[in-house]
């Protein structure tokens, strides 16, 4: 366990370091933020002055060195656009994205696991086929397209659910959340569903193939030979086994849910970090982009760590610590 933690920590440091260089250089390569930020009416002298003021006249390695020195002290720089600490801006937006991501993953599990198990138990039945065909659709449809269709259908044509924004929020432990108000929930549903669809299909598939494989195992037959009821076999023996891949994959996918929130948030104008990223990229707001990515990497590292621990809890065969 100790070795595992050390290994993870040292890997994380390397990952963060490498990512910071890549991202820093990448955003640098895109362009000069002053070109976008400055008022076009500014004359040449003013443009140069602004570049100097923002420290963009220095060579990139100097800029990176400054960034790194500050970053080590927990300061990832100020947003060029908003003149606020990049981390503050992100943390302000983070709850919205996390709320969306967790709800999406929740939906994916709550619907995906039972449907997948059903399809796995009856692979050749009509129900099984319908579920699988549905999951192929869910798997295939690009997120943005589904989002657009959802808006078309539920917001514009039917007028049932709002098309954009976050709606009313209430504070829960000082963090604004939407899911506690009806209005917030109505805003949350479409984007969450949009985001969940892909993962749900993934869970359905995992659960189905897991179920099919587990059902073929001797221990299931042995359990039946013991006289254990079908409900218990499915609910305990099968479920516990398929939850291992489901939890592992979903844990890792939580990262990609957060990443894909970029698309969903753009479509639904959801005020989360994904939209912030897109805006920041288009404004070349480098501090925010770098901070966003470093924060996400950190988040993924933490998620991976938790997933591994969870995995070792779910699957007693796994022992943390052994190399690889």
């Amino acid at each position, binding site marked *: 366990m100790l070795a595992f933690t050390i290994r993870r920590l040292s890997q994380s440091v390397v990952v963060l370091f490498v990512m910071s260089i890549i991202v820093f250089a990448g955003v640098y390569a895109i362009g000069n933020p002053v070109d976008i930020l400055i008022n076009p009416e500014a004359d040449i002298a003013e443009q140069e002055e602004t570049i100097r003021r923002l420290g963009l006249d220095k060579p990139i390695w100097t800029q990176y060195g400054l960034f790194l020195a500050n970053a080590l002290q927990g300061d990832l720089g100020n947003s060029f656009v908003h003149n606020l600490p990049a981390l503050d801006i992100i943390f302000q937006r983070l709850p919205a994205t996390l709320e969306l991501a967790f709800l999406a993953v929740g939906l994916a599990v709550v619907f995906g696991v039972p449907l997948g198990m059903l399809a796995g138990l009856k692979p050749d039945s009509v129900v099984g086929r319908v579920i699988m065909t549905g999951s*192929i659709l869910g798997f295939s449809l690009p997120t943005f397209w589904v989002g657009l269709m959802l808006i078309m259908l539920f917001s514009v044509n039917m007028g049932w659910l709002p098309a954009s924004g976050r709606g009313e929020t209430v504070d829960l432990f000082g963090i604004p959340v939407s899911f506690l108000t009806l209005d917030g929930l109505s805003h949350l549903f479409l984007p969450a569903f949009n985001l969940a669809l892909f993962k749900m299909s993934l869970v359905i598939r995992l659960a189905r193939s897991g179920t099919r494989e587990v059902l073929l195992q001797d221990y299931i037959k042995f359990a039946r030979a013991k006289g254990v009821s079908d409900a218990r076999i499915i609910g305990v023996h099968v479920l516990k086994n398929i939850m291992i891949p489901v939890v592992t994959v979903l844990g890792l996918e939580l990262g990609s849910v957060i990443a894909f929130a970029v698309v969903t948030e753009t479509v639904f104008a959801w005020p989360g970090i994904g939209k912030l990223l897109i805006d920041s990229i288009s404004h070349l707001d480098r501090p925010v982009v770098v901070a966003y990515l470093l924060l996400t990497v950190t988040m993924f590292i933490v998620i991976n760590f938790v997933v591994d621990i969870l995995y070792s809890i779910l699957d007693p065969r796994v022992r943390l610590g052994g190399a690889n």
Partner: protein
Amino acid sequence: MAAAVQDDGINPWRTFASDFAEKKLAVLGLIVFVALIAAAIFAPWITPQNPYDLNQIDFLDGRLEPGSVGSQITYWLGTDDQGRDLLSGIFYGLRTSLAVGAASTLIALVLGGALGLFAAYFGGRVDTLIMRIADLQLSFPAILIALILVSALGQGVDKVIISLVAVQWAYYARTIRGTALVERRKEYVEAATCLAISHRRIVFKHLMPNCTPPLIVVGTVQVAHAISLEATLSFLGIGVPITEPSLGLLIKNGFDYMLSGDYWVSFYPGLALLITIVSINLVGDQLRDVLNPRLKK
């Protein structure tokens, strides 16, 4: 250990084909997919219009309804805002989408496959290094990497392909390494070693063919993924250039008109994208089932 006495002519391909044909939906998917590929390849010869030739299109024909008769041809699926025949546009868009999907997948597959095989067979530091890089890249969602890369590299079909390769290669490296590690321990590799057959021959003649089935499955599904990812990037406005629109870009361009009732500009490309991805996934799905020995009785 069923009957061994079978026709001499029977080869694994035929069994494979008949296994595959068991699911009608998959066969349908395959037919559609092949048809789409043909449509994409032969687009210049079968489309009524070349939507890239500015002399052939007239923006005064912009946003005509499906079935409208234009100055030269009938626009069966209508036109977009530039006066391009949408049917032709979709064929050409399909060309771009499929080309991007296939090219990126192929390059990534060869690159990732080679690296993975290399890592698995030689192990040690090479393995550690390659796999750490792959982990690094896999710990990051594809969309984010692609987003940053395309932003950094700029627009262009080639740039999109590069970034799609960058996000995909690690899957293949992982997949093939996993399989190769299993295969490498199998006794037939030991037998080959024992017969003093060279490393190169073992890797390429013995190991590689046995590692490819999962790669094919992953590859097929990845083509669909790549197409979808490219569409998403284009939707976010940082994919292929507007002069060579992929299906994703056609959707994006048309979406502005969706609410104003000119649904066809976005809808038909969307439909085409959908059919493409679904058909590929149907094929990939069945491949997975057919090539998965564990589900075989």
